[in-house]
Each structure stands twice: as C-alpha cells, then as structure tokens.
C-alpha cells in the first residue's frame, strides 16, 4: 500500500518537475511546480512529518509560489517572450545533467549507509516534538531567522520599489 503510494507520488513529482523545466509557458511552469510541491508534501506525510508537510504547503504553495505567480503576471511573461537556448546548448545541458546524475548515483552506490533498518518512533515529526526542539535547542537560530526575514523584507521592498527619476 505505502509502496504504491510512494510510486504514485514519486511519478507525479518527477512528471511535474519535468514539466517545470520543459514547458515554454512560464505560467505552466509555476502551476506544475505547485503540483510538484504538493506531491512533496504528500511524501512528508508518508514519512510521518506532519508538521513539515503543513509548513511546506503554507510556505511554498501559499507564499513562495504566489510570489512567483504574481511576478510572472506582473512582468507579463508568456511563451513569446521566451527564447529557447540553441540546440547544441540544450544537448549539452542534458548531457551535463545526466553526467551529474550518473556520478551522484555512483557516489550513492559507493557509500555505505548507516543502520537505518528499523523506523523509529513515529511521533518525531509531530508538532509537539519538532516544536520542542525548535524552542529549546534551536531557539537562538529561530530568533535570528526572524531578523533574516526582516532584512529580506526590507531588501525586497527597497529593490522592487520604483526608482525616482
């Protein structure tokens, strides 16, 4: 059952990821990326990481992808504005990515994983548990990340603001 779910989700993930890369219309890319993120959220649930699954949907689908969508619409991008790379470059890109995949696979093959044979207690991914870690051991990084957000926000506002002439 879970294997079936895994394969279904994986197939959807890969398919939507490929669409992101290969479709010529930016809007389709954005939409299929959203699908891809939802399937990844499905994987999280499959791994019993409910807190992250929810956060993932809120942050990625809710915030980031909306931002992408807005930008695409704001800039009025469509298939006409997109000039594909030349054929040679595309072949080169495919080969290079393929080479990376092969070498990564080879690296994985040559690495012995530790002992992960038995899945642990299932409550590790629950809100309670992650929250506890976050507000005890990782409190300082958590607070600092708010400063990062603040600076990113100010940076974005300053950058995107219309310049005065």
């Amino acid at each position, binding site marked *: 059952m879970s294997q079936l779910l895994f394969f279904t989700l994986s197939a959807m993930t890969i398919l939507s990821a490929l669409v992101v890369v290969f479709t010529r219309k930016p809007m389709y890319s954005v939409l299929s990326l959203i699908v891809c993120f939802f399937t990844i959220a499905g994987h999280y649930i499959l791994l019993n990481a409910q807190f992250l699954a929810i956060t993932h949907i809120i942050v990625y689908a809710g915030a980031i992808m909306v931002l992408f969508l807005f930008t695409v619409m704001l800039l009025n991008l469509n298939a006409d504005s997109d000039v594909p790379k030349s054929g040679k470059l595309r072949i080169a890109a495919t080969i290079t990515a393929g080479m*990376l995949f092969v070498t990564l696979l080879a690296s994985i093959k040559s690495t012995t994983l530790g002992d992960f044979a038995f899945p642990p207690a299932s409550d590790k991914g629950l809100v309670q548990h992650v929250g506890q870690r976050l507000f005890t051991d990782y409190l300082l990084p958590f607070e600092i990340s708010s400063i990062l957000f603040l600076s990113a926000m100010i940076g974005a506002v300053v950058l995107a603001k219309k310049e005065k002439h």
Partner: protein
Amino acid sequence: MTFLGLLIPLLPLMGFLVNGLLGKYLPKGSTGWIGSLSVLASFICVLMIFKDLGAAQAIQIDVFNWISFGNIDISFGLWIDSLTMVMLMVVTGVGFLIHLYSIGYMHGDEGYTRFFTYLNLFIFFMLLLVMGSNYLMMFIGWEGVGLCSYLLIGFWFKNEAYNDAAQKAFVMNRIGDLGFLLGMFFILFHFGTLDIQAVEGLATGLTANSTLLIGITLLLFVGAIGKSAQLPLYTWLPDAMAGPTPVSALIHAATMVTAGIYMIVRSNVLFAMAPTTMTVILWIGVATSVFAAVIGLKQNDIKKVLAYSTVSQLGLMFAALGLGAFSSGVFHLVTHAFFKALLFLGAGSVIHALHGEQDIRNMGGLKKLIPVTYLTFILAALAISGFPLLSGFFSKDEILAHAFEQNKLVWIILFISSLLTAFYMFRLVFLTFFNNFRGTEETKHHIHESPWTMTLPLIILCVLSVVGGLIGLPAVFDVSHLLGTYLTSVTEPSASLIHHGEMLSHSLEIGLMTLAGLAAIGMILYARWKYITLKAMPEADSAITGIPKLIYHKFYVDEIYESWIVKPVFKMSEWFGTFFDKQVVDRVVNATAGVMDSGGKTLRLFQNGNTGFYVFAMVIGMVVLFIIRLLI
C-alpha cells in the same frame, strides 16, 4: 640596586628624548645643561652602585624576555660586574666632563641642541654596549655607537668632505660589524645561547684551540678591528676627526673605539681558549701600534696627530690582550681615556682659541696666551709619553713588562713604538706652545683662554691623568694592583688558560721601568733639541720628499684601498648596472611579466559575462569533483 642599574642607561636616554623632541621649545643654552646633567646623574648612579657592589659580585637585570623561539631565549638583559663598573665609570665620568666641555666649545653653533641630542644618544648606546648581558645587547650598543659616530662625524653636514668622512667611518665599521654578526651567529648556532656568562661557561668545556673557537674569536676580533681602528681597517679614525673636537675626545679616543678591547676582555675565556687568535691579536696590535706611531711622526694637523696616536695606543692595548694580560689592557684603556680625552680637549681648546686653525705649522708660542690649556696639555703629553710616575707610565710599563716576559721581539717593537709616541707628542707640544706665534697678527689678537666650562674638565682630567696610575701600581711598589684585583672575578677564569712567561724579578722590572722612563725623557729632550733649540719646522707639503713623503701621505694606504678595492667595486657595480641589470635581470623580469600578461589575456576570455556558461562550468566542476572523489 636593580633600579639604579636601570637608571644608568635610562637617564641619558631621557636626556636624548627631551633634547631631541622638545629641544626647539626649550630656552637656548639649557639643552646643553640637560644633556650634561643627565650624564652626571647617570655617573652618580654608577658611583652609588660601585659603593655597594663588591668586586666579585654581579647584578643581572632582565628587563624582559626579548626573543624567544625554539629553545633559544634572549633576554633584554643588563649585567653589571667589576669590568662593567670600570667601563661605566669611564663612559659616564669622562662622558660628563666632555659634555660639560662641549657647552663651552659648541656655544653659538647652530646645531647646539642637535649636538647634545646625539651625544646623549651616544652615551645611551655606549652604556648598553658595556652593560649588555648577552652578545645581542652588546651588538645593539655596538651598532648604536656606530650610528652616533656617523652622525657626529658628519655633524657639520654642509661640508661635503665631512660627510664623506662620516660615510667612510660607517662603511669601515660595517665590515667589522659583519664579522661580529657572523661570530654571533656561530655562537648562537653552536652554544644555543648568546648570554655571555653562559657562553663563557660552555666554552671551557670545549677543546682548546679548536677550529670552532678560532673561527668564532677571529670573527669577533674582526668586529673589534673595525670598531677599534686596527690594521687594516684603521683608516676611518683619522678621517673621523672631521667631527667637532669633543666628539673626537669622547667617541674616537675615550670610549667607542675601546669597545673592541672591552668586548675581548668580556669574552676573555673564549679568546683564551683560542691561542691562535690570541697570536693574531698580538701581532695586529703590535703592527698597528708601530705603524700608526710612524705615521704620527709626520702629521701636521693637531687632531690627526692625536688620531694616529689613538690608533697606536689602541694597538698597544690589543697587544696586551694578545699577551693574555687582560687587566693590563683595561688599565691602559682607563688611563688612555683620561689623557687622550684631555689631549683632544686641549687641542679643541687650542683650535677654539685660534678660531678653527688646526695646522701646527701656523701655531706656536701659545704657552703664555692660553696657560691652563698649555699646562694640562703638557701634563697629558707627559702621561702618554710614559714620563715616570704619571698614569701612562704605569699602564704602558705593565704591558711592556708582560711583553718582556713572553716575547722579546714584541717588547722591542712596542718599546720603539712608545719612543716614537714620546717624540711625536712632544713635537706637537713644542710646535704648538713654544717659540713664536706663526699665524697672522689678526688671529693672535683674538687668542683668549676658554671659558670655565671648558677649562674645568681639562683640570679634572689633568688630575686624573697624573694620579690615574695609582689604581694600578706594579708589584714592585709593594702594594696590590688595585684594578687588577678588582677585575679578578672577570679575568680569573681565563688566567689558567693563558701561558705566562716567567715572572720578572723585581730588580729586572725596576730596571725595565727605569729604562722606559729614561728613554721617554730622552726622546722628549731630543724633540726639545730639534724643535726648540734648532727651531726645526715641518716642511711645506710640496717640499716633502723621499721616505718622509711616504710617511706624510700615510703610506698611501687610503690610495691603495681606493685603487685596489673601491675602484674595482665601482667598476663591477657599473658593469652590473649597465650590462647585467639591463641585459639579464630586466630581460628575465620582462619575460616573466610578458608570459603572465599574455596568459592573463587568454584566461580572462573565460569570464565572458554569460551566466549560462558560468553555471555550466560550475556543474562540470561538481561532476569532476565527484569523479575525483570516486576514483580516489
């Protein structure tokens, strides 16, 4: 005591800083007193330590750990023992008198403040030199006094010839310093320490006269040759007379030039372990002594005569060291500091009175006009000539006695040298102070005795020159040799290493003393007969011929150096400058730059501004890294 010990070098340093930094804002004339009093204060500190410090005691002051790496520790340390005490008293005592004298002598000079600044700095470095507890500290002082000597020889830097003299002194000293430096490296390499006491201790464990010891001591001696103006590096000292006369008295007679003697006595164990070096020192000292005395016979510049006399006396001291008579060398160093400083100051007083005239052919008859100078000068001349019972008589006689014990040939040469000394000193005295004045009436009218700041040091030094011999009365007078006893703790470790000849019997010693005294008196009378009775005059420059001409031109040593060393070096430099530099060095450099340039021009094309290309490069780089990781 530690505090007092620190104050000794610090006080002149403070004087230097105050005069050097604030001199402009201080009332005119006060700077000289600041300089002098700082040295006087230092002298008082020395006396206070002397009062409390026993002859066999020593103070070690480690100011801080200066250099520390590996298992080498060099501290910024001072060391005060009996030898240091003697040197300290000479440096600060005579130094103070010369400072005082300079107040009068340099009065009205535009560089008055600068002069005292340099002088104080010199005293500071000289004190470091004699107080340093390790060779590196000594070397700082060694270099520092060299620097001050350079600054003070070229004090009147508007005169091109004076600047040349200063540079000559500096370069000549540098040759010696290189020897010292190399010697120091060898010591550090083989003993692992530069601390003088430690090195002395370690040296006794080595085989006597081993190549290592001979090498080290010879290198150190090269340093001493340069600093103390021995053959063949003596030529800078007569030229150094370009500086103001107090400088000649302080640096080039009493203190700095004796640094070489001090250094050898300080490392006496090291030297005593290398008899070969001792022989070299002996013969260089002997040769210098007689060589410089011969040149002194024919010089007409009052300061040049004194300069060659200094070289000759230093040679005598080195001969004493070469004989292993370390305390005798120090004894003569002390008495020499008294009477030679006095002679220079007297000469300065004469020059001062004659408004810069230095040629003795234009002097004469000054005896009545400047009586204090005359009286002190003649006593100093008697002392240096070895007139019985004056200081120089005892110190010189002690060295001659040691020479007689060990090597009759050395004794004969040194005896001749001291006869020559008596002659040329009194040639100087008679030509300067007796007969009639040979200058212009105009000059004669202005001749006047110097102010008290100048005559007081003369009188004090005169007293010291006369009675200074009391610190080293020979055994025949049935008293102990005060200085020799005082220095026992320093010279004792080497005493057993030196081969001494048979002790002279008292009657023989008295005989020798009488002989030396009578010979000195004889030479003085001969000079009197020649220059007063016969009224002989040194010829004009052009009239000198034959061997006297050779002597007058100082055996053409400067000219030989010029044509054999200086010119070839210049030629070589020129060849390097015009050919080697342009054809070889430039080409290599330009070719290297050309390769880099064209390489850079090619490589920069990779930075083509295309982001896509960069990403490609990055991914390919990652792939390559993964592959490397997989393969290894």
